């Protein structure tokens, strides 16, 4: 291929025709069209503002667990799940059902069975309890049109105001953890709220129904701002390895998992 062809049209050497040759009506139409297009895209961008500005990420440094003194809430409730301790006895599920009137067709918490590889290359079973992760940047709160689901400004629990729920189920579609279901009796979405109106209230903020029922201390409830709680100690002990589910969702969960 010749050098000239490779160069193609050299725009910098072309003469600028200017806009004087355009008919004024055409120019006006073009400008109007440009303004509308710009306005439309600006409008679309403005509507895509980030939600829940008060629900700051757990850490401004981007780490999963915040440094002491940087917690968005006080008390900042959390649950540590020691996966290796769970024996799938399901007492936690029963306690949750009876304490929070969970119907047979739904659940607030569940135990999933995993088949994972150990260090020797063998496959072994592990039980993984799941529940609402009370995220610091909850996608469910972000999408709810009426504020029926919201972050409690004091303790950060994701709560429901049943009266405001319109049943659009967008929060169900948005939750990366499958933590929500529609409760016919309430005509509203139901989800784990750390037993906010039941066991947590009864215990003075010390525990939840599932944690109280667990015989193997697989579920540890606590306050991330209180160094005396076991959850705090587990998370802040050097050498302890823990993780959160689906960190790629960017929701900054408050349920932490560790082996034992």
């Amino acid at each position, binding site marked *: 291929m010749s050098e000239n062809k490779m160069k193609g049209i050299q725009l910098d050497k072309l003469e600028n025709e200017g806009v004087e040759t355009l008919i004024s009506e055409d120019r006006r139409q073009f400008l109007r069209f440009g303004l509308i297009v710009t306005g439309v895209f600006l409008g679309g961008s403005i509507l895509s503002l980030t939600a829940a500005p008060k629900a700051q990420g757990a850490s401004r440094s981007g780490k999963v667990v915040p440094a002491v003194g940087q917690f968005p809430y006080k008390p900042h409730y959390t649950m540590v799940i020691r996966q290796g301790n769970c024996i799938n006895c399901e007492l936690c599920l029963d306690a949750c059902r009876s304490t929070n009137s969970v119907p047979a067709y739904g659940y607030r918490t569940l135990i999933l069975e995993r088949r994972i590889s150990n260090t020797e290359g063998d496959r072994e079973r592990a039980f993984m309890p799941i529940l609402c992760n009370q995220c610091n940047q909850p996608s469910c709160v972000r*999408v709810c*049109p009426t*504020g029926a689901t919201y972050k409690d400004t004091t303790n950060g629990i994701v709560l429901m105001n049943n009266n405001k729920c319109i049943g659009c*189920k967008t929060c169900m579609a948005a939750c990366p953890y*499958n933590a929500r279901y529609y409760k016919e009796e309430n005509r509203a979405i139901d989800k784990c709220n750390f037993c906010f109106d039941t066991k947590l209230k009864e215990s003075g903020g010390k525990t939840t129904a599932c944690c109280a029922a667990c015989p193997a201390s697989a579920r540890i409830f606590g306050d991330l701002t209180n160094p005396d709680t076991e959850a705090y100690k587990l998370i802040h002990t050097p050498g302890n390895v823990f993780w959160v589910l689906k960190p790629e969702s960017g*929701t900054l969960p408050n349920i932490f998992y560790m082996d034992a």
Partner: protein
Amino acid sequence: MKKGKAMTFYTKTGTSTLPPMNQILIFVALTLICVIGLAFGLHTMLVGHHHTLATTREVPWGLLITPYVFFACLSTGLCMIASLGQVFGIDTFKPLVTRTVFLSLIAMAAGLLCIALEIETPWRVGFYALFSPQPFSNIWWKATIYSLFTFATICNFLLLMIGRKKIARVFATIAIVLVTVGNLNMNSDMELLGARGFWSEGYMPLYFLSLSALIGCAAILLFNWISYTFNKQSPLDQGDMALQATGRLFMVLLLGICYFTVVKIMGGFIPKFTNNPEAMALLVQGDFARNFWIGEVALTVLVPLALIAFTKGKNVRVLALAGTSCLIGAFILFYDLVIVGQLVPHYQHYDIVDIPQYYSYSPSLHEIMISIGIIFFFLAAFMFGEMLFKKIYAHDQ
């Protein structure tokens, strides 16, 4: 208003005549089917979705989202095409304006009716959307924008009816801005659902807008042809030219959608081309492959392209056929768009025992009947418009 000039609220269009009996009968038949469909919706509302719909905890959005998205996008597309003649002043499209504005209005009404039947407690929407708004929610914005759009379009249509074209144009401008923002917002709404990455592909905003314009063109080609057939007219020269221009625009948009379809196909076969390889594989090679290849590829793109290419876009009847094919295909496309992304299990990468490779969903009888009811609502409203506003439509030409 100039001094001495009286305001005219209506234009006398001549002696009133009853519409032909066959049109009345068709309207009654369409309305009857619509009522039967909506009765299923009422039943669902009374007994609860849990008993009648096939949606589940894992797949909370079912078939009923499809007519909503379809008609909202259709309304957007129709509004865009109407604005070419009414807002941007392109003479070729002017003969289509009034009918297109009416179609846009009834399409949005059908969409809003469908979403009202889809949500569990629609009676709470008005009150809490007004008194407990959540401005960070795209759903709230979508509901607000589409309500404002409906209002602006009603005003636009009424003003067109009484011949106040200048003021109508103001409302048309407001409507086109609103509906385009609403369309982008609908995309954002789906994209922001963190659990469902299927909707967050980079090309989605442009895809949504192009699809809306495409089905808008398709509907104009189809419903104008139906109108000419019912009235036993052949389109006047100007009307014919407008339809042919719409046909050309339709073909350009088809080529655009063709590009997006190729991107989808690549994503379905080569994971690195998509953010959601599991969902795209399900769509292109899995259980939804028939929907994809027949609905999205053949009916939406290839058949209309072939029909237009063979007739060089000059035969109004063939253009209508191409439009019909595209509308049916686009409905299937929107169904896939809503459902497929939800079928990828939440904990698929966690080696969970007994978790299915994909969740399953099949629409229930109630969902099918409600969707039929919504489609026939649109058709009955179109027929109603043909009987009532025939002379107003004729003024455009």
